[in-house]
Structures are given as structure tokens and as C-alpha cells.
């Protein structure tokens, strides 16, 4: 037997590692080899299961450094990166680390040189391992197994890491699921935690792990629901969750279906919700034509006619700047095709006259363009529009407003007020004072004349008085605005 006290010139050495991720073993051997001045090209590193064919004739007994050999220096940054990189599955990693350790002796700040190819390679290995560690933390899926004897819950996962990260990653799962009994099975080994002790076990097969868990249906439903089909970005998903992980993730089986259905789900969302108006019509004639074709809400589907507002819009030709907005056409209006011709209209006319407002100087329209009713025998019974229907029709009224450009809008009734404001207000609270609108005009709110028709006696008198007061205030304010 030859002496191992010194390095033999021209000798090749083979270091067989007991574990693929045994950093301490590697460090101890590497330190000794550096101290014995063995250059990197004379060492072959062999991991379990790896072939040492390159240096099959090499000496497996490595030299022992002299007692007074200078210490081996390595920066903390190197040690940290090496601990990660050693978990990589690249068989060249040990040799790369040794070459860097060798070079660090002459240049202790070597790692700062990001443009050096070997430093970059080390960086890349460490980064890949960190990513694999992170993906394991993310994509392990535990499945519940009820214990046969103790009835205790046991959570078991099957995972296929790409690198030798199982041992390094164990601490994370122990800290997170400290009070849970769990096992993680992989093709290269397994981990078992019983709530107190972590044990390592032999490699496992996929069939050793449970095949399903009732909660997976809930999880899949969640996964499918939280996804917004209007924002399909498959590339972004694949970048972070490459296909290789899919086979062990219960939700991933849904992906093809979700992607394929996204287009139609989005168009359904659009069709069910947003309206397909392209450009807002910019003349009253165009709006008139468009509302006759509008079927955006259920009222438009009834057997009725659309009804346009009427009145002047030109200040030079007698327009006072007043726009009066009612709720929706009634039965008689629908038939006549003109706003406010029924009983409520006649009542309105009387009050306007009393207040000294010329109806012909105002533009009169409705918050909702179609008559909403239910058939009761031969009669068509008026129904109030829903908030949704008013909001839908707001599009048209705003179009009229943009063209007519009133100085003051008088909204009669809660529906009309909602059509102007987009929210429901209380008439009692809102009446009697102006509300500034975005376009600079003023909104006044009052009751709807049909409300007055339904009252009698003292209540009727009281409401009539309030209605007159509102109209008088409007008349006065209109004069001020006209300056």
C-alpha cells in the first residue's frame, strides 16, 4: 500500500459521495484536496448511481493534507450558493464547485465577477435549485387518508422533484404542518412526519400515494371560478407552472377545458352584461331610430313602441333651457307616441300653467323609453321599471341631454331621479334644492304627477302645494340661469 501523505504527481483521484446532496462530505473532501494542491482536472466526483468511468482507473484513496497546510478560504457567498447548487441534478456540479473553490484561493472576490462563465454557471445551478424548492412548496398536494386503526388523519402527497431537494425542503413542511401527520413520497425518497419526529424513508412509486380526496372537487371548482376568462394569458401561466408539474396537480386537468371555453365564456359575459352600443348617436333623430330597435332590457321586448322626447333644443328658437324628465310612457303615451298626453300629462300641464312655465319652451322626455306593463284582460297595467332597466336606458337619456344641453333638469319621481343620478334618492329629501350635475347643469327633483293623481283629500292638497312650490322654484332658478 502506498503512502497517502503526499500527492502523487500525475495521479487521478475519484471521490464517491455517499449522498447526492451531501454538502458537508463534499466540503470536507474538497478542502483536503485543495490543501494537498490537487488541481481540478485531477479529481472526479461520483454521486450514488453515477458512473465514474471517466477516471475508472483513478485512486479512490485521497491524500491527507499536512498538518501545517494553509487553511482553505471560501467566501460566505460561495458557501451559500454551493449548498444550493449541490442539490442540482447536473453530475458536473461537484467538479464545478471544486474548480471555483480552487480559483477562490487565488482570487477571494471571484464571485463578484458576474461575467465569469463559471460564476454564472454556479449562479444558474443555485437559481434552478431554489426554483425547484419553491415549486415543491407550491405544488405538493396532500390527500387525506383516514388511519385504519387510530382514525387519525394522515395527509399524503406524491411529488416528483427535478433535483435533490427533498431533504433540504423538509424543514419548510415541518414548520408549516407541525401539528399534522403527513408524508411526502417521491421517486428518490420519502419524508414522514408524525407530529414530533421526521423520518426519511425509501423511494416510493406514484401508486403508493392515495389517488384522490373529496376536497379536490371543491378545489377544482374554486380554481375554475376564480379565473377570469376575459383575461386569458396562457403564456404567463406556463412560465410559472410548466406542464411537467401538471400531472400531479388535481386542478391542472381542467386547464384545456377552461382555455377552450374562455372565448365563449367571455362573449357570454359581454352579451349578458354590457350593451353593444358602439357610438352614442349624436342627433335626436338617430336616438329615436335606435331606441326603436333597442332590446337591451326586458321592457324593450314587450309589445310596445319606443317613445322619444319632444320639444325645442335651440335657445334661439324659444328653448328655455328646461328639460323635464318623467318615468316612462304610459298606455296612452305609447299609443299616441307623444310624452305626457294621458291623465298625468294633463295634470302636469295645469300645474305648469299655474307656475307660469310654457310647456312648449321645455324639452320633455322620459327616463325609460318603452312602456312597461302586464296584461290584465284587455287592459295593459302599468308597471314600474327596475333599477337595472332604468340604468340601461340611462344611455339614451344621456344622449338626449348631450344634444339638448339643458341648463336645468326637472326629474319627476324616483325613477327619473335615478336615471339622472345613477342612484336611488328619496324624493322627500332631494326636492327643493338643486343638485349639480357633472356637465354643469342643475338637477331638481320633484314628485311624479301620477303620484298626485293617486291621492285625495288633505294629502292630495298638501302634495299639490309642494309640487307647485317646486315648479315655482324651478321657474325662478331658470330665469337666474338664463341670466
Amino acid at each position: 500500500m502506498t503512502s497517502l501523505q503526499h500527492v502523487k504527481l500525475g495521479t487521478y483521484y475519484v471521490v464517491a459521495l455517499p449522498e447526492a446532496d451531501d454538502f458537508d462530505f463534499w466540503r470536507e473532501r474538497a478542502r483536503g484536496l485543495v490543501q494537498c494542491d490537487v488541481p481540478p482536472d485531477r479529481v472526479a466526483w461520483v454521486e450514488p448511481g453515477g458512473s465514474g468511468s471517466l477516471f475508472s482507473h483513478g485512486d479512490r484513496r485521497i491524500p491527507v493534507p499536512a498538518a501545517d497546510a494553509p487553511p482553505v478560504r471560501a467566501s460566505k457567498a460561495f458557501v451559500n450558493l454551493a449548498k444550493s447548487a449541490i442539490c442540482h441534478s447536473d453530475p458536473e456540479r461537484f467538479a464545478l464547485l471544486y474548480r471555483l473553490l480552487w480559483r477562490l484561493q487565488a482570487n477571494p472576490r471571484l464571485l463578484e465577477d458576474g461575467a465569469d462563465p463559471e460564476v454564472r454557471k454556479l449562479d444558474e445551478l443555485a437559481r434552478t435549485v431554489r426554483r425547484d424548492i419553491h415549486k415543491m412548496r407550491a405544488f405538493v398536494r396532500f390527500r387525506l387518508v383516514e388511519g385504519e386503526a387510530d382514525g387519525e388523519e394522515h395527509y399524503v402527497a406524491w411529488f416528483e422533484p427535478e433535483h435533490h431537494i427533498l431533504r433540504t425542503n423538509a424543514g419548510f413542511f415541518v414548520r408549516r404542518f407541525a401539528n399534522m401527520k403527513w408524508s411526502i413520497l417521491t421517486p428518490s425518497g420519502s419524508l414522514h412526519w408524525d407530529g414530533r419526529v421526521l423520518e426519511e424513508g425509501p423511494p416510493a412509486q406514484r401508486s403508493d400515494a392515495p389517488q384522490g380526496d373529496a376536497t379536490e372537487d371543491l378545489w377544482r371548482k374554486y380554481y375554475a371560478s376564480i379565473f377570469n376568462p376575459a383575461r386569458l394569458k396562457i403564456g404567463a401561466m406556463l412560465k410559472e407552472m410548466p406542464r411537467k408539474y401538471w400531472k400531479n396537480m388535481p386542478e391542472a386537468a381542467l386547464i384545456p377545458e377552461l382555455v377552450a371555453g374562455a372565448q365563449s365564456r367571455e362573449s357570454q359575459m359581454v352579451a349578458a352584461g354590457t350593451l353593444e352600443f358602439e357610438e352614442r348617436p349624436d342627433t335626436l333623430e338617430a336616438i329615436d331610430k335606435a331606441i326603436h330597435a333597442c332590446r337591451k332590457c326586458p321592457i324593450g321586448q314587450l309589445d310596445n313602441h319606443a317613445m322619444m322626447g319632444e320639444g325645442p333644443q335651440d335657445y334661439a328658437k324659444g328653448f328655455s333651457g328646461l328639460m323635464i324628465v318623467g318615468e316612462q310612457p304610459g298606455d296612452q303615451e305609447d299609443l299616441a307616441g307623444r310624452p305626457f298626453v294621458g291623465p298625468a300629462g294633463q295634470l302636469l300641464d295645469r300645474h305648469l300653467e299655474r307656475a307660469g312655465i310654457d310647456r312648449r319652451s321645455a324639452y320633455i322626455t322620459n327616463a325609460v323609453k318603452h312602456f312597461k306593463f302586464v296584461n290584465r284582460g284587455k287592459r295593459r297595467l302599468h308597471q314600474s321599471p327596475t333599477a337595472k332597466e332604468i340604468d340601461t336606458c340611462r344611455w339614451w337619456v344621456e344622449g338626449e341631454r348631450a344634444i339638448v344641453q339643458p341648463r336645468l333638469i326637472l326629474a319627476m319621481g324616483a325613477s327619473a331621479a335615478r336615471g339622472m343620478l345613477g342612484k336611488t334618492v328619496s324624493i322627500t329629501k332631494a326636492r327643493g334644492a338643486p343638485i349639480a350635475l357633472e356637465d354643469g347643469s342643475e338637477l331638481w327633483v320633484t314628485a311624479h304627477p301620477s303620484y298626485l293623481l293617486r291621492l285625495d283629500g288633505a294629502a292630495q292638497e298638501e302634495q299639490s302645494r309642494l309640487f307647485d312650490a317646486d315648479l315655482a322654484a324651478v321657474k325662478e332658478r331658470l330665469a337666474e340661469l338664463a341670466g
Partner: protein
Amino acid sequence: MGAQTTIEKLEILADAAKYDASCASSGTAKRNSAGGKGIGSTEGMGICHAYAPDGRCISLLKILLTNHCVFDCHYCVNRKSSNVRRARFTPQEVVDLTLSFYRRNYIEGLFLSSGIVKSSNHTMEQLVEVARILREEHDFRGYIHLKTIPEADPELVHQAGLYADRVSINVELPTDAGLTRLAPDKSARQIEGAMAGVKADIVEAKDNRKRFKHAPRFAPAGQSTQMIVGADAATDADIVGKASRLYDNFRLRRVYYSAFSPIPDASAVLPLKRPPLIREHRLYQSDWLMRFYGYQPGEVMQATEADGNLPLDIDPKLAWALKFRERFPVDINRASKEELLRVPGLGVRAVGRILASRRHRTMRLEDVAKLTVSIAKVRPFIVTADWRPVLLTDRADLRALLAPKQEQLELFAA
């Protein structure tokens, strides 16, 4: 119609939460379940447990407690006047779902939001109750994000912060006018008042912890907010300005942007075209410029075009560089970190590596190429030992040279 099952409720209430942009589960106090009786840990970096086909990560169980709502905000699918299917979880159901998902390692925790039922206070109490059961009864040590109700009693918001890692209060829209129009039941003053209250609580809790080791933590992952982009006429300059005021005034951790997307049952008040998703992306890029690259909000606004919006075809950093060509080229071997961070195509990481590497060598173009993703993008703006862009930054067609090709753009602009 029979009672809804958990899975039916989950479908409705997760679907309703898909417009919430926040997914963060990081940056909170470090915890684990060792020594406790429950489960959960937080270790600095949050984990995305899955990715949806929309490219967004799933790290939290993000659901609404209920999508019933007494408010009527036009952009919101849960508005009172919308016809969506409604559902309502009990606090216990949310707790059970969170725990059973967490035990199977599907999630990092819970992000709970809610429509407003009965009253703001009632709703807030329910949200707090979910967090209380998780923390106190189950010793849950994972992440909790509560979306608070600004109209609720400040004391309830305070309780939320004691249980949650993060609280968020949505500003909803970048301008007050937009809020008035689209969210008639909300008030900007109330929203900002609630944010100010949370900020004060965070500051006070931090201060207390300096003096008393066991002082309770308050929202250790801070507060965030969300703004809807493209539902009103606000420009990118308005949005960036608003975001930076929010960062300054309330020390928010994050401002999230959510491109308005077609929602079922949308209101007629909303614009009818959805804004390109790329706009949202550009806003996030500008957010990064301010948070990590030392850009002032005013500088990001300088990168906008005449209409006040950031260009869609190039990123805001390149847009800024093209407008301030006199600041370039930057000498890779001499320039300060701040100057290097302004070079389009050089990220924070690449700049760090350049600074470290140049202590060892005089950087040549090929050295820079090794440290960056695309040298072609960087080249016109830098000087190295062997490279000097001759008048390249003066070329009128520089933008066209650097902007991605039109066909590519179409793919993203959808």
C-alpha cells in the same frame, strides 16, 4: 329551490372575487406552527400554489363572504341592481374551507372580501368573526387578508387589523368625480379617512412593539388598495398621480390596478370597450419604476404622451429614455447606480451584477450581454470599453427600432 351546497356557494362567491387583483401573501411577520396547536406558517416569501389560465397566481382562497350588496356601484358585478346569482357563506363555512384547503397545501391563507349586507358594521363584524375563529379557535398561523368596509366603525376595522396580516380598502376609482358617478354610495373622504385610520394603527403598533415585546401586531403586511382602470376617463397621468399620493399619505404597501373587464350585468353607464390589458401592465411597470428604480411620480408622468396616457407599444422606462435622450448614453464602467437604473433593459438585478463585476474587469459589450436579457435593447443607451453608440440616441427612428414589432403587439393587445 333547495338550499345551496357549499360547492355551489363557492362557485358563486369565488367567481365574484375574480376581479380582486391582489394576490400577495408575502412580507408579513414570520410565523410557523411549531409549538402551537394549529397549522400554518409564513416565511417572508409568499407562495403561488397554482396559476390560472389568465396568468394570475392563486396563493389565497379569495372569496366573498356574500355577494348580496346594498350598494349600487356601477362597475361592480355585485351591485344591488345586478341580476347575478347570490349566495352567502356563514363565517364557519369560510373557516372550514380555508382550513381544509390549507391542510392540503392548496393555499397560503385567506383573502376575504364581502358585499355589504344589512349594514356596513354588520358586514365588518362578520369578516372579523371569520378571522377571529381562524386565529383564536384554530390557532391558524397562515396568511389572512381582509378587505375592510370603509363605512364601518373604525373600531371594527381596528379589530380586523389585529387578526389579519393585511387589510385593504379600495379607493375604487382614480378620481373623485369618477367615484361620485360610478360608486354613488361611496365617498372618497370616507375611504381615505379609513386608510388614514389604518395607517395610524400600524404606526402605533410598530411603535409599541419597540417598547413592549408582546405588544399585539397590527396588519404586519401593511395595507393595500385597488383602483379600477378604464371605467372612467382618468388618464395614466391621473392614475400615477393618485397612486403616488396614496403611497405618500397612507404608506401603502401596494396599489393594485384592475383593468375594467366586461362584467356580467354591467351598467349602461360604463364604457363599452374594455381597456387593453396592456394598459394595466404599463401601470404596474410605472409602479415598479417608482418603487424600485427611484423615479419620481412627476418623471413617470413625463413619459406619458400628449393624451396623458403611457404608450402601449413600449414600456414606460423606454418611453422616458426616448424623451430624455440627453441623459444617454450612460457609461457602464463609470456611471452611478442611479444612472444605470435609468437604462432601458437594465433591471435592478443586472445593475447590481454590473456594479460588482466592474470592480474586476473593464466591461465590454459582451460582458454586459451576459448579464442582461437583451443587449439589443440596452445597446443604444450605453458606452462600454469597446462600444459607443454613434449618434444612435439622436436617430429619429430609434423608437421604431426598439418597439416590438406590430404583429407581436396585436397578440397582447387583445
